[in-house]
């Protein structure tokens, strides 16, 4: 069993607060991603889980036992570092065997377990090589094997895929996910790449400046973002965030702005109650429709730029002083500076408070 709980976890380095009051609970066997831009504190949080940093405040509990003061060597965790940290002077076999040798296991047990771990990540034929002779992907597998050979109760991964080329990354994503499912081991992945987090993790904890922005499944973060940061971070191309005014006309609620006039569906309007003033509207590029020439839409503007991506095009449109990003199907013939009209989605309007950025449901 490996339940992990972070409660009010805080880490300060002098005047800098790297992690601020992080609350997180992982069920046994769960795969959670700590996602966020650089400097958001995710690696610091991971290192606190590993025991390499001591929390300034807050608690870390493994299976309901507080482990703040437990040194890394006693925590029974496996960790893969971003640089892999394979000991360059040892062979692959010795690298993987190292944790077991430190435990003074008998050598036949060591040999057996090292081979098992190597087979698990498919590097059996590389055991005699040195890390310097391996490719990036192979090194990563060795690092994984070394982390898993001691049968840890949890696996910590620090940006494991960032040093790999694009193709290898896709491959290893699936590999790691498969491995985690197969072993059922509680895993925490740190990454700045939202695609990685979305494809691999059961749940995602999105952090910014040391604070948790939202914790939820990929769908939660994508379709029910808690604030503008989450909304803008998750999804490629990113969601367009526009400022508009809430106006009430004939008993209906309308979002008004320079070049846009979007009616709000009745149920959403009901939840808005008596709110007035400015509001931030989020529109996903795939939800906005480009209307045929001459059509009157809820948004009107000029094309700013067209980026062909093969299967579809990303079109940036200026609406008033703001920019809306739209995904257009292949074949769209618009050009920069041409006027264009767009329809906003009925069901997929995201509304946020303009001052706090929190979602208004």
């Amino acid at each position: 069993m490996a339940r992990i709980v972070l409660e009010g976890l805080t880490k300060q380095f002098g005047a800098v607060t790297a992690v601020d009051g992080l609350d997180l609970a992982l069920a046994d066997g769960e795969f959670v991603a700590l996602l966020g831009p650089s400097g958001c504190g995710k690696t610091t949080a991971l290192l606190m889980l590993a025991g390499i940093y001591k929390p300034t405040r807050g608690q870390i509990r493994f299976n309901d036992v507080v482990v703040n003061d437990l040194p890394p060597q006693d925590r029974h965790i496996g960790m893969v570092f971003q640089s892999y940290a394979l000991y360059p002077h040892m062979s692959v076999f010795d690298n993987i065997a190292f944790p077991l040798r430190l435990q003074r296991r008998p050598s036949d047990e060591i040999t057996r377990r090292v081979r098992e771990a190597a087979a698990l990540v498919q590097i059996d034929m590389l055991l005699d090589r040195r890390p310097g002779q391996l490719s990036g992907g192979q090194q990563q597998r060795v690092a994984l094997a070394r982390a898993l050979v001691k049968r840890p109760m949890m696996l910590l991964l620090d940006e494991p895929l960032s040093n790999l080329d694009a193709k290898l990354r896709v491959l290893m994503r699936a590999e790691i996910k498969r491995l985690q499912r197969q072993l059922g081991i509680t895993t925490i992945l740190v990454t700045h790449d939202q695609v990685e987090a979305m494809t691999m993790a059961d749940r995602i904890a999105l952090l910014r400046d040391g604070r948790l922005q939202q914790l939820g499944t990929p769908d939660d973060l994508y379709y029910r973002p808690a604030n503008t940061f989450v909304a803008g971070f998750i999804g490629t191309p990113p969601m367009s965030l526009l400022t508009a005014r809430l106006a009430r006309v004939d008993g209906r609620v309308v979002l008004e702005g320079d070049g846009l006039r979007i009616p709000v569906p009745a149920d959403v309007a009901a939840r808005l109650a008596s709110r007035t003033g400015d509001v931030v509207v989020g529109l996903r590029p795939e939800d906005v429709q480009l209307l045929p020439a001459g059509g009157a839409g809820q948004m009107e503007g000029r094309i700013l730029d067209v980026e062909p991506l093969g299967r579809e095009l990303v079109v940036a449109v200026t609406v008033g002083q703001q920019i809306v990003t739209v995904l257009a199907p292949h074949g769209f013939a618009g050009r920069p500076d041409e006027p264009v009209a767009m329809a906003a989605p009925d069901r997929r309007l995201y509304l946020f408070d303009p001052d706090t950025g929190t979602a208004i449901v």
Partner: protein
Amino acid sequence: MTTQVPALSVTRPAPPRPARRRTALVALFLGPFVLLTVVFFVIPAVLTGLLGLTDLDASFQGGVVGLANFRGFAADPLLPRVLLNTVVYVFFTLMCFNVGMGLVLALMTTQIPDRVGTVFRAIWLLPRLTPQVVYALLWLWFVDPTKYGFLNTLRGWLGLAPLDLISWSPWLVIVIVNGLIGASLGMVIFTSAIKSVPEDYIRAARVDGASTFHIIRYVILPLIRWPVTFVIVYQTLALLTSYEYILLVTGGGPFYDSTVYALYVFKRAIENGDYGYGAALAFVLVLVGAIAAQFYWRFLNFERMITQPKIESD
């Protein structure tokens, strides 16, 4: 858009013929260096060999005697003892201090906060930075055979009679005297090497279950093998050819018991005035030095020091 072309080519006078100007530049910049090193470095090296073939003495009289001096090595009654002294001196100073103590100090001072570590390292650098005569003065005070010497004062507190440490164990004295100086170079080099071991290796080892001792033994030491080898090789040559401290503290004595080869050269040539024989002895060292210099070149792969220059040859 228009561009302004600098008017260099118009106003500058025609340059002198390239070859002559080139040579003038080379002469100006490299000349002094070449002149000085040839006169005071290269020529003396050759001269040592030539002198070794003579029996020049203090009154500057003598003639060429061929290889007689070199043949005379075998008949020299002092030489065996001198060679033994040298081997013992170089080996023990190198292993116990230059490398041994250097490693110990480097390892220990990197396990504690850096500010404190720097203080201890600074203390151990003090002997190296002290003028040689002053350092010798401190040692002479320490080994002073009368009851006023520091060592003998301590012995007095313990109820022991005064001891002449140099007579009692000349080897011990010369090893420690030079060792305290030698340790600091290894310490600085090893400290730098230890600090440049990437933090991730240490962290990975901790997660793997390693204690600090394990980390030193299995991660740090293997990763600083190259600097250790460098210090061993480099300091062996340095120890073979150094003798100032021995001269100052023990004078090579008692008798010749602490005279190492390099000091023996000095004694024969400068103190006794046997320039010819002394040069022959010195020539052996010159050869050793020349071979070692070649060896460094290959071994340490200094090729990369000779990277391409910035300016094309004009």
